[in-house]
């Protein structure tokens, strides 16, 4: 299989309300940033792929406006997924694997501020039996959290520690929205308190991918994608064990997260990475992902969410891509040698993607 790497990553500041900027205005500086990092011009990019949601934008074909920010002239080879940008990266990775492209620009963005994102996300649910009841994302995450507590797998104190650790990690993060000491607050939907929930905000992110020697030419230390896989689960919450995430585990296995890299020693119990960027918008979902990925195995020394994760910044549709970008950036600056990045979509972690990234 062809070697493909992340060679640049950029993101906007994540803010509660970006009313003064359009999606294009939010995105353009980020696109300029990643192109400048590689020295590439827009016309040098062989393939462009983005992820966004019309439901957040409140209009059909919202991605066509963002395309203006890319400057698609002369015409470009381009695609779009109505999914988190992590899946746009997946499509671009496949394109590079075919050999039809050497470089790809991936971007995603989301503005939650114009509407009520809790209500908007209910439109993802089964339109006949569940969506008419308007159960929102916090309520569904609370069901999951309660299931974990009932199973003795976590407690409110442990959840609060996840929140505190994440926001402490984000103190030095220049783009984070929620950082430092954040009170756990009142229960929003029991057992989840406001502190267990992600900030609501707007933001954008972009990644440049490149293959083989092109990647080596564009950056000193490419973050090579050693494995990339994603799996979806059943939609009906009633048929799922909400305390587990078999799709995450399967995707991680397929991405080679548990395989020993050449020349490494280990038991193979925990994933063979030093860093994990997990897309867990709610504290309780980190518990589920840690279990699925065996991050708490006795010999595990994995550093989880050094960026602060989704609890520090959660621009819906971009949060997953940012996990891959944060993991790659850590490799690029020499702070990690091998990292796992995870992205999720759908209620209660229904759909999960895992990437294994490695420096040379």
């Amino acid at each position, binding site marked *: *299989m*062809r070697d493909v790497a992340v060679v640049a990553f950029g993101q906007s500041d994540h803010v509660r309300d970006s009313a003064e900027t359009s999606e294009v205005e939010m995105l353009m500086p980020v696109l300029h940033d990643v192109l400048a990092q590689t020295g590439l011009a827009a016309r040098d990019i062989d393939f*462009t792929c983005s992820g966004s*949601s*019309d*439901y957040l934008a*409140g*209009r*059909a*074909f919202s*991605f*066509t*406006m963002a*395309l*203006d920010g890319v400057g*698609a*002239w*002369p*015409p*470009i*080879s*381009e*695609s*779009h*997924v*109505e*999914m988190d940008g992590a*899946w746009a990266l*997946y*499509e671009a990775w*496949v*394109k590079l*694997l*075919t*050999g*039809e492209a050497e470089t790809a620009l991936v971007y995603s963005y989301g503005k939650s501020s114009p509407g009520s994102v809790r209500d*908007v*996300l209910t*439109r*993802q*649910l*089964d*339109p*006949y039996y569940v*969506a008419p009841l308007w159960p929102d994302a916090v309520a569904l995450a609370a069901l999951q959290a309660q299931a974990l507590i009932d199973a003795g797998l976590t407690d409110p104190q442990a959840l609060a520690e996840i929140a505190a650790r994440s926001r402490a990690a984000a103190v030095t993060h220049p783009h984070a929205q929620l950082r430092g000491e954040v009170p756990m607050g009142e229960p929003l939907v029991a057992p989840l308190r406001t502190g267990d929930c992600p900030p609501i905000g707007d933001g954008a992110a972009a990644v440049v991918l490149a293959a083989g020697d092109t990647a080596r030419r564009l950056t000193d230390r490419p973050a090579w994608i050693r494995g990339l*896989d*994603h*799996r*979806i*689960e*059943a*939609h*009906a919450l009633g048929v799922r064990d909400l305390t587990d995430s*078999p*799709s995450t585990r399967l995707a991680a296995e397929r991405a080679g997260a548990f395989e020993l890299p050449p020349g490494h020693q280990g038991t193979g119990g925990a994933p063979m990475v030093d860093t994990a960027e997990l897309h867990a918008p709610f504290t309780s979902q980190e518990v589920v992902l840690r279990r699925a990925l065996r991050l708490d195995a006795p010999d595990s020394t994995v550093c989880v969410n050094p960026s602060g994760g989704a609890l520090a910044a959660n621009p819906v549709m971009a949060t997953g891509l940012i996990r891959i970008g944060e993991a790659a950036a850590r490799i690029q600056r020499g702070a990690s040698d091998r990292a796992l990045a995870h992205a999720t*979509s*759908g*209620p209660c972690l*229904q*759909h999960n993607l895992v990437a294994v990234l490695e420096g040379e």
Partner: protein
Amino acid sequence: MSKEPVAVVGVGQTKHVAARRDVSLAGLVREAARRALDDAELTWADIDAVVIGKAPDFFEGVMMPELYLADALGAVGKPMLRVHTAGSVGGSTALVAANLVAARVHRTVLTLAFEKQSESNAMWGLSLPIPFQQPLLAGAGGFFAPHVRAYMRRTGAPDSVGSLVAYKDRRNALKNPCAHLHEHDITLEKVQASPMLWDPIRYSETCPSSDGACAMILTDRTGAARAPYPAAWVHGGAMRSEPTLFAGKDFVSPQAGKDCAADVYRQAGITAPRRQIDAVEMYVPFSWYEPMWLENLGFAEEGEGWKLTESGVTELDGDLPVNPSGGVLSTNPIGASGMIRFAEAALQVRGRAGDHQVDGARRALGHAYGGGSQFFSMWLVGADAPAA
């Protein structure tokens, strides 16, 4: 490392109609997927990944419906992708799926596109007022009519050409059991007498609103060798995009469409499209787009496309049959319309198009476009496996 050749071994469609009130969204897509599996004589367990596409989520009121449809499409435990590239999405979705096989990430992929337009109203779904942006004006027809008028001015095409396209496509649809419109009493006079909707586009020169789904099974060489019926081989595929509005944009013959076709022809070794391609399924939502795309795709010189239509070249028994299935003018589940073009092209070279089969079709082009004539996706399929 060369790409793995990609074969279409299964095609399935629903009977497209105005409103499928008897099935849910899940029921609709499952019906098409099941038919594609049957055509390939495969089961759900043989599918490694699922790639779906549809036009804006507002058309059904379900955000990111791949989540809800995972069960119905047998995707649980598998990778599932959802593509959205406006009207070209059905084609783009097939190309994303084909790349999974070409890159050897997966061996056998189910790809499907759908729209259940009866769940809402597409015209007004497209016309939401957005601050500081030009309104689309009552759906797609209001947007495209001035560009049709520009084509007529530029080429001197007579007013009669649009009606000829509609008359041909609606007659072709009578030979296609899946087509939405089956107007058994259609006459050219009826098309010409139909009300003017968006001048110069008449009611009968406009696509219907349909509920429908289209599915294909794509596989590698090994999978094709096991297939019960002849495969359609992908000889070339490409997507191109350009901005919606900019100074110098040619709405009549967009550069992105020309570039996309050129890329596909280069991959497929096509140097004389008119002579080398036996059938075309092109995205013609308003009748005049047939002559316009004939020029854009290189089947006619600039300004000459309407002459092919007028002289009967694009008829089912003509020299270059266009939309033997009846096309978008007879069937328009928006998000699926592009994939239906791709699938119908595959049916032609597989020799499985039934009564609308073009005799001896060996190479066929599937074409889709969307947005403000800015998103293009195309593939060229052949009866023979591509040269290694």
